[in-house]
């Protein structure tokens, strides 16, 4: 309800402004993919293949725009959300993005998922001057307006998150022996780098074990056994959800209780902590920027209620423990905001300009205190995180929201 009201007011405001300030604003400007009635948004997602678990993000976004359209669209225009499957394969991503741009003629490519796929399409989209908006990966390289003015990130970068953990450890446990378990891909290596940068000169002395695993391994028990043999005090778990749950469960089975810090990606109460066993997960640390829908502390949260209503109505039967539903909703809401800000000037340049002028925007799904801010030199929309500790059956936030922007090289 609130949203539609806001939209109506925004539409009204635009109308009033158009009315008062004369010809310059009254002129509607369009690039390919936008018209009086429709805005065409392109997207690629791994609906099939090894990363199909993320497909739910695309489905959520599709449903979100359906909701927007049911409420009259954005500034009177319906959103036509075209989403294709790239199977998490970079060559397929290139093919599908070219199809979106050259055949479907979309205005922008929004929230394409995965570092490899995004790297593969970045050069093409920038050469064509097509916005690569709010990419769904946490690599630092998306915040590089100078070299890639048409690419902008969305979520906090993996490196900045790792930075925050390193700083926390330097403060709380400066003499700890730290072990790092990471996934051997761009995701895990970014965390590894962020941690090392965060420790700075102390990295060599503090990090005693660096253990990597491959995503194709069925079980990572033997890695945990090996790490335990080195007897570190702290275990940094830079894994995807399944392996995060395995790690927490296995350390408990081994009767080993190091201080464990798990990535935000794998911090879901419903789909990691619960399968790993709440008893085993007590005291685990993490950092968050979004609310966890399965966390009882948000049961009465007003903005999350909106999310709940949305899921019930537009994605009936969806598994609410899946973090992708929260993620997709937040990202889609950010795009809706940007399009709303564009008014009648729906050129690609203006979309990019508006995406880079978000001020204290708060999607329903973000933690209190976390805001989206962008600027001409700041292409990292969400850069705040808050530390949290697992207690009972939920996360307890502690400390302040920390900004962890890491500049790309």
């Amino acid at each position, binding site marked *: 309800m609130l949203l539609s009201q806001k939209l109506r007011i925004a539409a009204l405001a635009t109308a009033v402004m158009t009315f008062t300030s004369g010809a310059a604003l009254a002129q509607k400007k369009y690039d390919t993919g936008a018209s009086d009635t429709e805005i065409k948004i392109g997207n690629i997602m791994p609906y099939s293949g*090894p990363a199909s678990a993320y*497909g739910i993000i695309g489905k959520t976004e599709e449903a979100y725009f359906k909701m927007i359209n049911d409420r009259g669209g954005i500034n009177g225009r319906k959103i036509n959300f075209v*989403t294709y499957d790239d199977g998490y394969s970079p060559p397929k991503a290139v093919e599908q993005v070219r199809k979106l741009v050259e055949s479907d003629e979309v205005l922008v490519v929004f929230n394409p998922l995965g570092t490899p796929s995004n790297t593969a399409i970045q050069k093409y989209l920038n050469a064509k001057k097509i916005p690569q908006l709010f990419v769904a990966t946490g690599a630092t390289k998306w915040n590089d307006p100078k070299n890639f003015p048409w690419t902008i990130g969305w979520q906090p970068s993996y490196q900045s998150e790792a930075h925050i953990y390193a700083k926390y450890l330097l403060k709380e446990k400066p003499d700890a022996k730290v072990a790092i378990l990471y996934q051997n*891909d761009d995701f895990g290596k970014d965390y590894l780098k962020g941690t090392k940068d965060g420790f700075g000169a102390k990295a060599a002395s503090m990090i005693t074990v660096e253990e990597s695993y491959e995503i194709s391994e069925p079980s990572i028990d033997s890695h945990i056994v090996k790490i335990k043999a080195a007897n570190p005090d702290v275990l940094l778990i830079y894994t995807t959800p399944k392996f995060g749950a395995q790690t927490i469960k296995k350390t408990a089975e081994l009767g080993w209780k190091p201080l464990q810090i798990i990535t935000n990606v794998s911090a879901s109460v419903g789909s990691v902590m619960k399968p790993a066993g709440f008893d085993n997960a007590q005291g685990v640390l993490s950092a968050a920027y979004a609310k966890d829908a399965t966390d009882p502390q948000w049961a009465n949260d007003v903005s999350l209620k909106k999310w709940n209503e949305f899921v019930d109505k537009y994605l009936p039967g969806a598994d609410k423990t899946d973090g992708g539903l929260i993620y997709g909703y937040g990202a889609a809401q950010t795009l809706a905001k940007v399009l709303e800000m564009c008014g009648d000037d729906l050129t690609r340049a203006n979309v990019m300009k508006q995406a880079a002028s978000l001020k204290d925007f708060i999607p329903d799904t973000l933690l209190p205190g976390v805001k989206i801010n962008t600027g001409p030199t700041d292409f990292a929309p969400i850069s705040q995180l808050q530390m949290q500790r697992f207690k009972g059956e939920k996360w307890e936030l502690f400390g302040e929201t920390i900004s962890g922007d890491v500049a790309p090289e």
Partner: protein
Amino acid sequence: MSAAEEVVAEGHEAVEAVPKRAMTLGTGTSLVVVVLLLIVPLFTKNFIIFQMTMLLIYGLAVLALNILTGGSGQFSLGQSAFYAIGAYISAVLMEQFNVNYALTLPISGVLCFGVGFLFGKPALRLSGVYLALATFALATAMPQLLKLNFLEQWTGGVQGLVVTKPDAPFGLKMSQDMWLYYFTLAVTLAIYIFSVNLLRSRSGRAFMAIRDNEIAASAMGVDVALYKTLAFGISAGITGVAGGLGAIAVQFVAPDSYTITLAISLFLGMVVGGVGWLPGSFVGAAFIIFVPNIAESISKGLSGAVFGVLLFLVIFLVPHGARQIAIVGQQLIGKLRKT
């Protein structure tokens, strides 16, 4: 019963015997296809040209597998490994050593030939399921090898390597996509003609003798070990060239591009196109590029399932792949001529 009918009626051999004249297209048909391939890009969008380029590239890779399996009877689920090596060699040479893109292809081809030949040596002792597993192992291991730390300064490690797309030379007024398409087409035609001639040559006859009956072939004096490894080498070499072209067309190489999924796709391409029928390789390539897109347009959530169902339909209707259709067509034309 004509030779063609015999082929279709044939039973349960691992790889069926295909007479060598049934392995290619007739001259007339070939000319029509080539003319079409030359003209169509002039009238289509760049995106379609890009898809056609990818079709030729995957077609080459399937063709390479076809020479190995359809020609010499050896089975491989590891073609993605050679494709990856070729792609990385081209990408690294272009980006780190500033070698001209056209020159990187023969280098990729030759190096992949070497790798394939060497891999063929131990694989000699294996056959059937065991060879499948050995090649499968190679394909599984390849992305991990590409990620290795000590190679990272060249390969870009897990992040991969972005490749610059070449412009049309001699000041030709042609888009990059179109130039790359014609370049790929030229390479493809050259390799296709080479392959056809190879299979008609002494070596080709030796391959097929081995495929049809290894023991009999060796009794007749065919150097089985040499020709089997040679088939592996040639197949890997062609796949390597395809990989190099793929890297240039996609403008990016990364370990995630060359997983076992690619090897499986190439294998499916071969089966759908018809094992041992060289032109079928391109039909198969079209299948692995377009059918997933069709499946996805039918249902997003179930795209995998729809793809599976479509694949089942194809193999139910034509268990011998596109070759079967071609043979039936040929017979029809033959009958028409007689009457």
